[in-house]
């Protein structure tokens, strides 16, 4: 296949990828979008095989590795529970990063295969592109591994900070620039290896200081990085499909990070520099005294809800942990049978990744037109009788509006406190991830339900 013809096909597959994202503008068109994405991928892979043309005996191994990877991927896709999506996505990001590194190294060792010159005299532009691809890929890889370990609970979600952390990171970033320069001027492979090693280290150092509740930002950010890594490799390979995709994914991740940061009223740098909760906690523990809360059981909750005419449900990460989405849906079904209006309110940063709660509710067969975003539903809390908060905490804390001293001050919250009564399903009175006490617990009209979210929901259903 001629280079021009394959370039046109790569362009087509790039366009199909754009359509794949475009399809996600509504649930109706989303499946068609996904199909476009698959089609684009099939075209890109087929064209690559055809354009290489003369196959060495490596072909058989290429096919075997393709098949093995594909089977593993398909197996994971069917087995993974929806509550584990954040871990899965973090894991997948790490794979994109690592394959970018592998491709970059491969191109460095065998530049002839990629038309980049010969070893020792690789084109300058290609060297720079390769370095960018490898460095960003390596950062994506090690960063995603840490994110994965934190989300999986293998590593503690609390931020790990040490003195001189930011200084060290800045130093390493400068080292990358210097190494790239040295690599380009000397063509020595040693600099390339050091460059990659330093990048792995940066990815690691960048993510360890970031706490569990900031994971939505981290995942989006790593999503963005994986895109830029792909784009870097795309420039090296002079491949339009990769360049387009890299740009799409890069900007997609950046926008999601922005939306997540806005949801927490924090600047991107504030999140990246990390340590949320660690510094503030000491300040807030000082004036903490035991205050009375009203706690109730499932029967009280059932009674309150039975006498309500409208209920708003506020799910959070705790619902995912307790796998309570199906039990919740059953409870709502019972409520609906009693002619009670039920809707769901989702905060942008609820859960561990963008849209996490929506997927869980979709899994439990909750119709998506009953699920509302913060801006859509916030005015309805005034008129609602009961707010049922299940596994959420910081996103309902009125201190974000009233207490300028609070670390979450200014964060948009769901106006749960405006409801006539609030039911709070929680395992204990412990503060949320931001390390702040929730004023809502001590309000007159709040009833705390101390239990596992799933068990409590099931009991309430029985009580109804």
């Amino acid at each position: 296949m001629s280079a021009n013809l394959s370039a046109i096909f790569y362009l087509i597959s790039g366009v199909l990828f754009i359509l794949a994202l475009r399809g996600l503008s509504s649930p109706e068109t989303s499946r068609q979008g996904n199909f476009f994405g698959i089609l684009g991928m099939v075209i890109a892979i087929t064209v690559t095989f055809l354009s290489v043309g003369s196959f060495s005996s490596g072909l058989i191994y290429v096919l075997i590795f393709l098949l093995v990877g594909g089977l593993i991927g398909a197996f994971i896709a069917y087995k993974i529970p929806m509550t584990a999506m954040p871990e899965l996505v973090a894991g997948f990001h790490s794979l994109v990063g690592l394959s970018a590194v592998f491709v970059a190294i491969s191109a460095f060792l065998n530049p002839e295969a990629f038309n980049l010159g010969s070893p020792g005299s690789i084109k300058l532009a290609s060297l720079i592109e390769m370095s960018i691809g490898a460095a960003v890929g390596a950062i994506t890889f090690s960063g995603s591994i840490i994110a994965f370990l934190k989300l999986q609970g293998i590593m503690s979600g609390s931020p790990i900070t040490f003195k001189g952390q930011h200084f060290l990171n800045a130093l390493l970033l400068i080292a990358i620039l210097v190494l790239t320069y040295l690599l380009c001027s000397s063509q020595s492979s040693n600099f390339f290896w050091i460059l990659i090693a330093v990048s792995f280290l940066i990815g690691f150092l960048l993510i360890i200081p970031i706490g569990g509740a900031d994971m939505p930002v981290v995942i989006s950010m790593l999503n963005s990085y994986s895109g830029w890594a792909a784009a870097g490799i795309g420039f090296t390979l002079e491949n339009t499909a990769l360049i387009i995709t890299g740009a799409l994914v890069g900007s997609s991740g950046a926008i999601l990070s922005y939306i997540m940061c806005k949801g927490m009223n924090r600047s991107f740098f504030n999140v990246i520099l990390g340590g949320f909760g660690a510094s503030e906690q000491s300040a807030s523990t000082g004036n903490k005294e035991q205050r009375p809360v009203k706690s109730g059981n499932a029967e009280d909750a059932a009674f309150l809800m039975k006498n309500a005419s409208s209920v708003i449900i506020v799910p959070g990460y705790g619902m995912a942990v307790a796998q309570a989405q199906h039990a919740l849906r059953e409870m709502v079904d019972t409520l609906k049978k009693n002619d009670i209006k039920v809707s769901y309110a989702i905060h942008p940063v609820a859960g561990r990744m963008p849209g996490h709660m929506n997927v869980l509710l979709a899994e439990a067969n909750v119709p998506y037109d009953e699920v509302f975003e913060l801006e859509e539903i916030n005015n309805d809390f005034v008129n609602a009788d009961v707010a049922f908060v299940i596994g959420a905490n910081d996103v309902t804390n009125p201190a974000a509006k009233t207490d300028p001293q609070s670390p979450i001050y200014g964060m948009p919250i769901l106006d749960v406190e405006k409801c006539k009564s609030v039911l709070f399903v929680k395992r204990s009175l412990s503060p949320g991830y931001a390390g702040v006490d929730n004023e809502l617990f001590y309000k007159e009209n709040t009833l705390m339900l101390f239990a596992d979210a799933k068990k409590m929901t099931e009991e309430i259903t029985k009580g109804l």
Partner: protein
Amino acid sequence: MEIDPFIFRLSIFILSIFIGYYVVWSVTPSLHTPLMSVTNAISSVIIVGAIIAGLAGSTANVFTISNILGFLAISLAAINIFGGFLVTQRMLQMYKKKKKDK
């Protein structure tokens, strides 16, 4: 003077960032998780580089480091491609079921 082809690729890149910007803002927030998994899948188009790396070289020796890295990258990217698209499909399927229920 002729324009370096790099400039054309850079143009494609910059324009694609803008396309991405507008397309992603139009994605409904309830589909942000599928958006992440599908962007994951499509960024694995990096597999084209891995395939070139895997197929390169002489017939005599298909196990140069460059080839082996190519093979490994193919596997990693394939996990992502199949895993990413299928899990997206699975999620989007759940958004459909409810539509029928009503």
